[in-house]
């Protein structure tokens, strides 16, 4: 991708006008949020709202990745949220370590004798792991002191996990529903593993205080929220560009062919497994990056985030938005996750039926579930499919 003669082919954007449209909309949206939050202050667009929007952009990014792996390549992965979570954990480790280090160094500064490195490390470990009854830094945290190394982990760990898992699964030709169940099993195993106290990631306490960015503690949260919003928008833009480029052209043609009839693709001489593996791994890495941007905005990550249901929700977003087109995934993720927080956050007014009052905090999931069934039955192309109908009618 870095070689200049092949980065987006000449005419790539011209051939795919939806990409330009999308990037334009994203740019306008970013600008709008920036202006509203900075120009008019928190009264109009609160810091927490900026955070929610930034987090939503991250969810849109993983939804795009999910769309590539499912909508284009036909692998209904119920495990991509696990990669998202791993990315979050990887960055969370640095955030937590570096911040705790700051606190520890400050508190030890008053000691008559300056601390040794080992003493500092022990104090940090006690601070972080006291909650699970340990005072040693697990081997897993060997790189936690370094932001660059941990950033490498953000991409490397989901990538490697996806590579190994995908290689095992695709090699033995596990497809369709079986593969979905298998990816779900992977997610379950990971979340169960993380739930244990002795696995070095604080069990069900998870990692917390991630919104405090070491080195930027002097800045107000409103500024940091905006920065993360920008970063999320940039990541979504770049990710969208990357995947749009990936699914256009011959590669996209091959993976769609794999989705529709992988046996036939084999007889054309394509090594189907490598293609699937590449798509699976690449989307896993992007998911990890999305998670690494999401969780500093969320402030906390715990194993419940990785529970199998999260990955299913991801599939639901993509299905509601419309599979097989990237902007559909973005629409689905944005609409459903924002609606979800609106309904469950008490934003939606109760509906009084006379004999019963519908409280949306209780009934939102019922609505979502049934709505999702309706979308699957009546609008298999999702919201973006409706789009088409409107546009093409005249």
């Amino acid at each position, binding site marked *: 991708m870095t070689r200049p003669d092949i980065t987006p082919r000449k005419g790539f954007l011209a051939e795919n006008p939806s990409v330009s449209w999308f990037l334009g909309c994203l740019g306008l949206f970013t600008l709008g949020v920036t202006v509203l939050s900075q120009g008019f202050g928190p009264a109009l667009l609160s810091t927490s709202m900026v955070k929610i929007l930034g987090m939503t952009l991250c969810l849109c990014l993983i939804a795009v990745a999910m769309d590539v792996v499912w909508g284009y390549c036909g692998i209904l992965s119920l495990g991509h949220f696990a990669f998202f979570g791993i990315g979050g954990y990887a960055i969370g480790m640095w955030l937590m370590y570096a911040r705790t280090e700051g606190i520890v160094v400050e508190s030890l500064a008053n000691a008559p*004798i300056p601390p040794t490195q080992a003493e500092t490390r022990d104090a940090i470990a006690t601070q972080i792991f006291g909650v699970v009854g340990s005072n040693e830094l697990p081997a897993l945290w060997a790189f936690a002191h370094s932001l660059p190394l941990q950033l490498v982990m953000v991409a490397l760990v989901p990538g490697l996990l996806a590579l190994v898992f995908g290689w095992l699964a695709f090699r033995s030709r596990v497809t369709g529903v079986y593969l979905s169940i298998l990816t779900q099993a992977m997610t379950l195993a990971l979340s169960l593993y993380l739930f244990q106290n002795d696995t070095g990631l604080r069990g069900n306490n998870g990692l917390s205080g991630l919104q405090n960015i070491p080195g930027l503690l002097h800045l107000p949260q409103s500024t940091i929220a905006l920065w993360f919003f920008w970063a999320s928008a940039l990541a979504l833009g770049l990710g969208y560009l990357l995947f749009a480029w990936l699914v256009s052209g011959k590669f996209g043609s091959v993976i769609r062919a794999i989705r529709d009839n992988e046996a036939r693709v084999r007889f054309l001489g394509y090594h189907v497994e490598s293609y699937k593996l590449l798509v699976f791994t690449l989307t896993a890495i992007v998911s990890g990056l999305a998670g690494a941007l999401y969780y500093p905005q969320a402030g906390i990550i715990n194993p419940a985030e990785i529970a199998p249901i999260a990955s299913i929700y991801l599939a*639901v977003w993509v299905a509601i938005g419309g599979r097989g087109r990237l902007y559909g995934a973005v629409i689905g993720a944005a609409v459903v996750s924002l609606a979800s927080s609106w309904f469950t956050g008490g934003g939606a007014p109760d509906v009084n039926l006379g004999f019963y009052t519908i409280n949306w905090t209780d*009934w939102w*999931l*019922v609505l979502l*579930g049934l709505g*999702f*069934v309706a979308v699957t039955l009546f609008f298999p192309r999702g919201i973006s499919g409706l789009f088409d109908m409107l546009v093409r009618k005249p």
Partner: protein
Amino acid sequence: MRFTALFARALLILVTFIGLSLARAEMATAQDSLQPILQGHAADLAKPSRQTIGPVIAELLATDHPGIADFLRKWEAREVYQRPTDGLFFYAEETTDALRLIDIDSGETVAEVGSRDVDQIRPNAGVRREVAAALVPYELNAPDPARRLAALTAIARSSDASQIAPLAQSIETEPDADLRTRKERMLALLTAQFGETKAARLDAISALSGDISIEARSVLNQLAARRDGVAQTLPEDINIARVLELGTDITEAAAYDRLVAENLAPPPQTAKDLRDVLAQHIVGGTVGGVPLHLLNTTEVRARAYEALEAAGTVPPRAAPDEVANAVAAHVFYQEYLQPDPDITQAAEAALDTTRIALGLYQTADLVLDGLSLASIFFLAAIGLAITFGVMGVINMAHGEFIMMGAYTGYVVQLFIPDYTLSLLIALPLAFAVTFGAGVAMERLVIRHLYTRPLETLLATFGISIALQQLAKNIFGTQARPLTAPDWLGGAITLNDIVGISTIRVAIFVLALIFLALLLYILKRTRLGLEVRAVTQNPGMAASMGINPDRINMLTFGLGSGIAGIAGVAIGLYAQVTSEMGANYIVQSFMTVVVGGVGNVWGTLAGASLIGFLQKGIEWFNPSNTLAAQTYMVLFVILFIQFRPKGIVALKGRAAGD
């Protein structure tokens, strides 16, 4: 044969019992009041001394008055009081500020007095021993078997050498065979610990080998108990269990800790100690001439300490090799508390045998546990497997059907308080409810998605979250009870190790019934024939006049109905919550995937594999069920590598591509 023996034994017991009661009745009429008897020995009882009390107790016991043992026990426990005014003995209860005197014969409250108005009788330790020793044989030969049993239990609780002789004597006259074996075992236990001759003890110990009862094991463990020891040279006069090899059996650090604990070596200086000592010797911003800000490495701190040491301010530190030298100069060993090596050897040998027996029984128990878990998984998964096999549809709402069944059971219990009856109604009702729900779901949703299996998976997931939330809205978030009838409440135990709760046996039976029922339906009925036809080749089946729509509907209903029944079964031993289905769904998927699709035996194999494996892994690491589940899932992922189509896979063209 066995029956005759049993009958004879029962007859014997009956006869003995009648005889004894008659004898007792006679005595009771002769002397029905205890107080006069006691008054006959008033002086000795009020001021007992070890020299004189023996014959008194013997005489008292010889009267065989029914209350005498009770009296002696209370007397020994200092619960008997004498009223100085008339010399009568009383039991007493302490109230907040007074004593309530209780008549010894009638058991009624006589008066409330201050604690100074009566004399508490306080036998000394020697006397109390005498009483206890005299009571043991008396109670062991008591006519009432319950009392004899109580006496045995008392011995087990605190045993000593004095009990051996009376116990041995009482065995000969013991009429009850069961009690007799118990007594014999207790005798062996006592002899093993306190036997007079070594030979007797050795015999008793070897008789205990393989006995898995907790008492026997604790006796043997006591006999083979060890204590850690350390000395400069290995002592000759003690019973050494083994000498610890440095590096393999004990680490150098642990060895040194032991030296420190035995005051054979000074405690090592920790990093914290060093820092504290240095902090005490800060002089003008330096320690031993080293500026404070440089003291942030161990090396510099050591240098500072050396400087202090050279100046004589602090005591010299242990040299680095001092620990090694100190450890090397000592020998670490374990010794037996029991001085006689023959005894300990015999105990170890007996323990080895016991451990093997224990292992066998534990395996048996594990197998039972695994079987029970497997039958639960089977019940939970078989419905899923049927629908998956016939229709190629994964029903994500299957777990919610399980939940629905459990809630049906709960609601039935609200209306019908009799648990047995409500269970009998709940089972078919749960089937009916979930059958209906399944058919409705098939007609409304799944039918329209047949060509899109992945979307079916997601659509049923939508139904699943809606149903789960609906249950939450109706029944609330807290767990609801589904109570099992009493006859399902207990447990069936074989011995101290092997046991299983009745409810799990019932679930196992239920699973067997369903296995049989399904096999019958699939292999022997028209419906089963058609289901199998649709499973193997839907197109061909349709062209032969089988209506696949109808078959699909019925299959889906059947699968869902079984989920409902599984829900009732699971609800009986687990709690009924809106999330209970979700807890079983992933295991059910794995059962289906591992077992192979479209085959009852496959599901059975999958459930067995998953159930046994989960129990097996839990056995290796009992403290951590989360880890067990993690490994379980990893195993399934690996298993699929080698058998992508499950244990029982359809072969050839029927399997499709």
